[in-house]
């Protein structure tokens, strides 16, 4: 579920030529640095998606009865990191606004994991994202974007404040810095691997 395998190649050429695409989400509150992080580690391209508002009927929608068919345009951050030919990471910055929650379900399908960006000055902004990934058992790391001027907290403080499950990594980062962003992704992939192994052992034992 965590990846798409292209069956079109590789059938005769062996497994190594099979194209793999891994999906990672970048979530967090409004203005926390999602676009900045995706841009720092990857080329960034605008990605538009039109969604039927009526399809998202479960949304709290101020417009009242939605009896016309309307679509809304949502911009998502989108980036790609090519590991090697045939193996790529795709990053999707999820829209921060509540009314686009329905997009998360689509984005999180088959995701390897997620980065939840947090700002210690408004930690509560990332609660919804943390809840979301915890409930769906999608591996995630919390990346604390260290804005200048914000008091610095230790990872353990943040972990406690967010009441994270034991083991959920908390990483301090600077979303503008490529190496820092890469480190966040590395921690996530490592953690996703550990979670997966643990689950396999669970089903065996």
């Amino acid at each position, binding site marked *: *579920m*965590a*990846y*798409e*395998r*292209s*069956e*079109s*190649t590789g059938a005769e050429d062996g497994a190594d030529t099979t*194209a*793999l*695409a*891994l*999906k990672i989400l970048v979530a967090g509150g409004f203005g926390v640095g999602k676009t900045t992080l995706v841009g720092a580690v990857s080329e960034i*391209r*605008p*990605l*538009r*998606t*039109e*969604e*039927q508002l*009526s*399809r998202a009927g479960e949304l709290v929608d101020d417009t009242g009865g939605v009896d*016309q*068919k*309307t*679509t809304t*345009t949502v911009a998502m951050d*989108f980036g*790609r*990191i090519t*590991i*090697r030919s045939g*193996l790529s*990471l*795709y990053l*999707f910055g999820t829209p921060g606004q509540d009314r686009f929650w329905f997009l998360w379900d*689509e*984005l999180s*399908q*088959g995701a*390897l994991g997620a980065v939840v960006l947090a700002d210690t000055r408004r930690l509560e902004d990332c609660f919804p994202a943390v809840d979301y990934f915890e409930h769906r058992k999608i591996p995630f790391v919390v990346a604390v974007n260290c804005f200048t001027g914000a008091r610095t907290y230790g990872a353990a403080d943040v972990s406690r404040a967010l009441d994270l499950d034991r083991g959920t990594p908390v990483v301090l980062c600077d979303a503008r810095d490529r190496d820092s962003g*890469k480190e966040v*992704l*590395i921690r996530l*992939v*490592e953690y*996703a*691997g550990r979670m*997966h*192994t643990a689950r396999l052992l669970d089903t065996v034992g």
Partner: protein
Amino acid sequence: MNEDSAGGGPSVPGSQWYDADAGPLVRPYAMTGGRTKPGPSNVRFDLIALVVVDDDPPGPAEESLLGPEHRSLLALCRAETQSVAELSADADLPVGVVRVLLGDLLESGFVRVSRPVPPAQLPDERILREVIDGLRAL
């Protein structure tokens, strides 16, 4: 889910159920003939599903019947295997529209689309290791 959105009013000649005010609301789907869901095969393409051109595509005669958007998607796939998300970005079309157009191309045999791997099969450790090393080396 509203199934009525597929193949509804606009395809019926003379049924102008929408007026000028509705224009911008439905416009993105004009090039799909008003369809908002992929055709009968009803595939839901994941954003990272990879699209490749079919090895044995229909001939030039059939290709010449394709609309400009279908053709531009096909050209992008020919250049390189692409994810649905990238096709959307490169063709500057909304993902919803790209999905419908790809459904057409799939049904008429121009392209093939990778299928999601069953949930139980996450990438094996070797691949995750490769990703980690690859990130470090960037």
